[in-house]
């Protein structure tokens, strides 16, 4: 497989990526369309972006979404990291199988089931639906994604560092914060970003678990999308796509750089020995 790419390979990649990206590119292009009609190009204009600024419902929903994302991603990162440590560093304990099942199942569970079951729980325990309930719901499904991301980092790194620290008398909790956490930090950060993105993108689970005063941006977009394609919605979507793209690329560059620094430091340390 080192002979380079054949024509067939190049074609597979070109067509595949065209399929993945063309619809998004078209959507963004048409958000700058002056015409109200979707298919007619009426010249370049930013008027849909301007009209967004006056759409208070959307702005309010965006604010709810951002707060929800920040809060739920942070809680999910803490819980997800604990879950990853449990799965990789705690050995056997009673109920381990059930635990790993509960961590992996939400990754593939259809959203309608997660949403419905959580809503029924909230009704059963008499918790009023609103910002709190939707936050709990988002934490629950996104912590599992964090756990998987952090876990893959935990299984792949050199445990002798942790062992050395503990042999030298460092208590387990300190070892975690001084040795383990700095090493797995890139994974924890990408876990947080994943949780944040899942939260701001989620529609179905929010529909079930939210209540008055906590309408999220995807819910607003969904209700207008059902009525047809609108240039204003193209503009909101384009902004979201832009933010996500910048965030993901910036994060991957930062991770790469941190990784290189670490490798360099490790090499320097090894050479200095």
């Amino acid at each position, binding site marked *: 497989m080192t002979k380079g790419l054949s024509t067939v390979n190049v074609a597979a990649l070109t067509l595949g990526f065209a399929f993945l990206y063309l619809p998004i590119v078209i959507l963004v292009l048409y958000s700058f369309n002056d015409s109200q009609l979707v298919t007619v190009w009426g010249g370049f204009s930013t008027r849909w972006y301007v009209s967004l600024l006056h759409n208070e419902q959307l702005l309010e929903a965006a604010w709810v979404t951002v707060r929800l994302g920040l809060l739920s991603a942070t809680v999910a990162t803490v819980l997800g990291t604990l879950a990853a440590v449990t799965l990789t560093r705690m050995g056997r304990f009673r109920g381990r199988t059930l635990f790993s099942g509960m961590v992996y199942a939400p990754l593939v569970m259809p959203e309608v089931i997660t949403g419905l079951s959580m809503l029924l729980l909230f009704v059963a325990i008499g918790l009023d639906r609103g910002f709190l309930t939707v936050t709990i*719901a988002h934490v*629950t499904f996104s912590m599992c994604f964090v756990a998987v991301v952090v876990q893959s980092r935990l299984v792949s790194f050199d445990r002798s560092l942790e062992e050395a620290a503990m042999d030298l008398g460092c208590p387990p909790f300190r070892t975690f914060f001084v040795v383990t956490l700095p090493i797995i930090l890139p994974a924890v950060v990408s876990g947080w970003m994943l949780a944040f993105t899942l939260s701001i993108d989620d529609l179905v689970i929010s529909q079930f678990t939210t209540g008055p005063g906590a309408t999220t941006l995807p819910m607003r977009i969904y209700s207008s999308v059902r009525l047809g394609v609108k240039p204003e919605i193209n503009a909101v979507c384009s902004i979201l796509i832009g933010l996500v793209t910048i965030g*993901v690329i910036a994060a991957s560059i930062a991770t790469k750089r941190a990784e290189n620094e670490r490798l360099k430091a490790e090499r320097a340390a090894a050479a200095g020995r």
Partner: protein
Amino acid sequence: MADPKAPGANPLGRWAVIGTPYLWLLVFFLAPFFIVLKISLSDTTIAQPPYEPLLDLSLGWQGVVDWWSGLDFENYWLLTEDELYWFSYVSSLRIAAISTVLMLLIGYPMAYAMAKAPKGIRPALVMAVILPFWTSLLIRVYAWIGILSPEGLLNAFLLKIGLISEPLYIMNTETAVFIGIVYSYLPFMVLPLYASLEKLDHTLLEAASDLGSPPWKSFWQITVPLSLPGVVAGCFLVFIPAVGEFVIPDLLGGSETLMIGKTLYNEFFSNRDWPVSSAIAVLLLLVLVVPIALYQNVQSREVEAKK
């Protein structure tokens, strides 16, 4: 615990680390399923909450007895009697299965080419596959509405170049749902495939070719079998959520396309029938429990292998 010095050797700390996420998932992930099960056995009423019987503990033991005797399988009978539900299940499984095969056909050549690409550009290619996944599913599905609708861009384009004389009706058909599912879940198929193809031992292929095996034969006898774990993981990862998909059939499938996720959603939000939607959820979970268990098995073996 094999290693007494592992973090959490202090039993209290150990239980705090294990207990916090454990308890959270028990309360907010596992317990709700039992509530769904309970409500699926209740009856619909016009009240708040819209089901009965309610467990009234103030009546003491009698309350428990009344509640228990009020539960029955009526909703499940309804599901077997009304063809709508039966069709929904079957067509969900069918649509998800066909989409999975389509994704495998599109994703395998992509993943194969990515694994063959020069080492330097591989991370960029992986990034390019992941990036659309970070964009909201809703937005990606919405993008297709503008393309597929009768007055959409695809028809405008095809009419202009004269390939068709009247618009194609793709929107609100099953074809649109296939396009939507394949488009939305493709990254989940490509990434596991790529992961297994990338770590393939090239010396095996070289040995085969030295011994005179033609490339297509080496591909079938070496590459494909060794990439099977990736194929299995990818298929589960896309098939299971696709069965219960709601947004895609709702926005692209129109009223013709029945999928169980959509039926559940409508039963809950339009008809406000909580017991029936719970029964649908229980049956959907029963259908999916085998693939989910298999998927977890594959996952944990993968993790064990990495250790």
